[in-house]
C-alpha cells in the first residue's frame, strides 16, 4: 500500500530533463537491460523498490561479499510496477511491492514461485502466519514478507486536535482545518479512508459504496491543501496540519518533532505488508536468490527495519531489535486498534481506478 507516485515522477523527470520528453517516455518503457548472467553470482542484480526503502550498507556488503553489483530502481506505485512488467523487458530481478500485488502479479504471470530451499537464511516458520498468508498464491510461496505497517493519520498537535475517527478526519478537513489537510496520492488509501467515513470496508468494490466515497472526495477536494504522497515536507514546514499517512512516515515525523502525533480512526485502519518477489523474466536468478537470502538474514533484516521504521515479520529479527523500536506504538500499534487488510480486488478494480482518476482530474 506504500505507493509513492510523487517520487517516481521525480525520477522520470530526471530522465526527461536530460533527454527530452520523448526520450523520457522511451526510457520509462525501455529501462536498460542488465548484463546477462555469465556464471553463478556475477553481473548485476536489479532491485526494484520504493524510495528510501533499501539500506545502502546492506547492498554494499552484499556486493563486497558476492561481487554482484546491485542496481536500485525506485518505483512509485504497484500500478506502475504492473504496467512496466506487462510491457516487458524490464530486466528486474528482485521486486518489492505490497501484499495486494502478490496474487495479481502471479495471476498475470509477472512473478515466479520462490523456491525457499534456495534461501538457507530464511525460515518460514519464524514468520507470523498473518504476514506469510498474503505471500502465498494457491499455497505456493510467491512473495516473502519484508515488513508490515499501518495507515492512519499524522496530526501536528500544536496546531490541531487529533481526530478520533475517519468521519472526524473528513469533517475537520471540510471545516476548521480547511486548507490544511493532505490526502496521499494513491487510490487504495484515498478511497479507502473515504469509504471508512461511512463505515464501509477499505477494500470495497461495491458500486453504491464507491459512489458515496466519490461524492465525499469531490466535496473535500477544494478544502485539501494537497493530494500528495510527499506529505512530509509540508507537514514539517507547517503548511499542512493533518495528513492521512503511513506509519513509517509518521515514525520519521514524530522522531524529529514530538508534536507530530500518529492516530487511528475508530472505524478501522489499514494494515499492509511489503513483499519480496522475483519477476518471471529475471535475467540473473542466482543473484536474485542470493540477494534475497542476504537481506532475509536476521542481522541484515534488522538494519532494514531500523532504517525504514516499518515493523518486522520475522520473530528472529524481532529478537535482535532494540527495545525502543519494539515499544514504539507508531511501529507496533496497540492491539486495541482495529485493523484490516485491503483487498487485491480493490487494487485492480476498474471502477475504483476511474473514480480516483476523476477525483484527481476534478
Amino acid at each position, binding site marked *: 500500500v506504500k505507493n509513492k507516485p510523487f517520487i517516481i515522477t521525480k525520477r522520470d523527470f530526471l530522465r526527461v530533463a536530460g533527454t527530452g520528453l520523448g526520450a523520457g517516455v522511451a526510457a520509462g518503457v525501455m529501462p536498460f537491460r542488465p548484463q546477462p548472467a555469465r556464471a553463478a553470482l556475477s553481473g548485476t542484480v536489479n532491485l526494484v523498490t520504493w524510495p528510501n526503502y533499501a539500506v545502502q550498507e546492506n547492498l554494499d556488503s552484499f556486493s563486497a561479499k558476492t561481487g554482484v553489483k546491485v542496481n536500485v530502481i525506485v518505483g512509485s506505485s504497484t500500478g506502475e510496477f504492473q504496467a512496466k512488467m506487462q510491457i516487458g523487458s524490464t530486466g528486474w530481478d528482485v521486486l518489492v511491492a505490497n501484499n495486494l500485488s502478490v496474487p495479481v502479479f502471479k*495471476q498475470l504471470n509477472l512473478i515466479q514461485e520462490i523456491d525457499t530451499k534456495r534461501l538457507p537464511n530464511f525460515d518460514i516458520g519464524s514468520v507470523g502466519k498473518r504476514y506469510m498468508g498474503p505471500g502465498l498464491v494457491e499455497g505456493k510461496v510467491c512473495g516473502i514478507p519484508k515488513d508490515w505497517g499501518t495507515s492512519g493519520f499524522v496530526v501536528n498537535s500544536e496546531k490541531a486536535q487529533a481526530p478520533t475517527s475517519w468521519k472526524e478526519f473528513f469533517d475537520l478537513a471540510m471545516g476548521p482545518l480547511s486548507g490544511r489537510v493532505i490526502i496521499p496520492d494513491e487510490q487504495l488509501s484515498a478511497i479507502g479512508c473515504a469509504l471508512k467515513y461511512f463505515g464501509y470496508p477499505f477494500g470495497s468494490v461495491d458500486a453504491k459504496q464507491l459512489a458515496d466515497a466519490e461524492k465525499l472526495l469531490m466535496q473535500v477536494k477544494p478544502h485539501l491543501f494537497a493530494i500528495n504522497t510527499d506529505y512530509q515536507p509540508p507537514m514539517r514546514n507547517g503548511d499542512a496540519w493533518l495528513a492521512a499517512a503511513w506509519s513509517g512516515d509518521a515514525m520519521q515525523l514524530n522522531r524529529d518533532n514530538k508534536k507530530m502525533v500518529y492516530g487511528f480512526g475508530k472505524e478501522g485502519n489499514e494494515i499492509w505488508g511489503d513483499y519480496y518477489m522475483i519477476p518471471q523474466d529475471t535475467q540473473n536468478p542466482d543473484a536474485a536468490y542470493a540477494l534475497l537470502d542476504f537481506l532475509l538474514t536476521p542481522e541484515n533484516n534488522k538494519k532494514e527495519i531500523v532504517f525504514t521504521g516499518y515493523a518486522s515479520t520475522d520473530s528472529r529479527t524481532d529478537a535482535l531489535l532494540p527495545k525502543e523500536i519494539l515499544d514504539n506504538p507508531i511501529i507496533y500499534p496497540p492491539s486495541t486498534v482495529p485493523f484490516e487488510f485491503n483487498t487485491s480486488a480493490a487494487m485492480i478494480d476498474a471502477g475504483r481506478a476511474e473514480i480516483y482518476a476523476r477525483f484527481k482530474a476534478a
Partner: protein
Amino acid sequence: MSMENRPRTTTALLLAPAGVIFFFLLILPSLVVLVYSFGERAPMGGYQPALTFSNYLNLPARGKAFVNTLTLAPLGTAVAALFSFPLAYFLAMRCSDRWRSTLLIMVMAPFWTSQLLRYYAWIMILGSKGIPAWLAMLGFGDIQLINTPWAVLIGAIYAYLPLMVLPIYVSLEKLDRRLLEASADLGASPWRTFRQITFPSALPGVAAGSMLVFILLMGDFVLPLFLGGGKVFFIGNALVDLFLQSRNWPFGSAVGVSLVAIMFFIVFIYMRFVLGSSGTRRVALV
C-alpha cells in the same frame, strides 16, 4: 550506379539514421497509440483489442485537465515572452560586450542544476513561510500561493524563461544595425524604428521561443505536480495517472491523441496566421 544517382544515394544514406529513428521512435509508436485509443481496458488494466469510440466520448471526464492546460500553458507562454523580450533586447542591443557573455551564462545557469531541486526551492519560497509570510507582514492577510494555479504559473515562467530569452536574443543579435541608422536618418522616431524594424526582426525569435515554451508546457506534468500539489491538474498528469495508476491505456491513448491533435491545430493556426500577418519570413522559424 551512375554518377547522377550518386548524390541522391548519398543524401539518402545521410538521412537514413535520422529517418530510421523517426520511423521507429515516432511514427510507429504514434500509430500504436492511435490503434490503442480505439481499444478497451483489459480487466486487470492495460489494453485489449476492440473497435470503440467510447474512449473519445469519455474525454469530457478529463475536461478540467484540458481547460487547466489550455489556460495556463498559453498564459505562461505569453507572460514569459513579455518578461523575456526586454531582457533579450538589453542583452542583444544595449549590453556591453564585456558583460554580455557573463549575463548570457547567468540566463542559462539554472539549467545546470536539477529542475527538481529548483521546484523544491519554489515549494519553500511559495509555502506559508516564504512569500506569503512577507505579504502577511505587509498586511495582506493569509494568502495561499503553493498548490494554486498561481504557483504553477510562476513556476512555468521561471522554468521556461531561458528557453524564451535565447531565441529572441539570437534574432535580435542578427539585426543589421545599419537599418536602425538608416531609419533614424530618414527621420523615424525611436519608437517607430522599434515598431517597424526591431520588433519585426525579433518576431521569428518570439515565435520560436513561444512554440518551444508552449509545446513543453502543454505536455508538462512535473511542474503542476510539484507546485500544484495534485490540485492543479494538467493533461500530462491525466496521462501519468491513466497509464501508471489506473492503467487504462486505451483511454490514456485517446487523451494523448487529443493532446497531439490540439497542439497541431494551435501550432498550425499560429504559424499560418500570426506569422503570416507579421510579414516575416516563415523559413526563419523551422
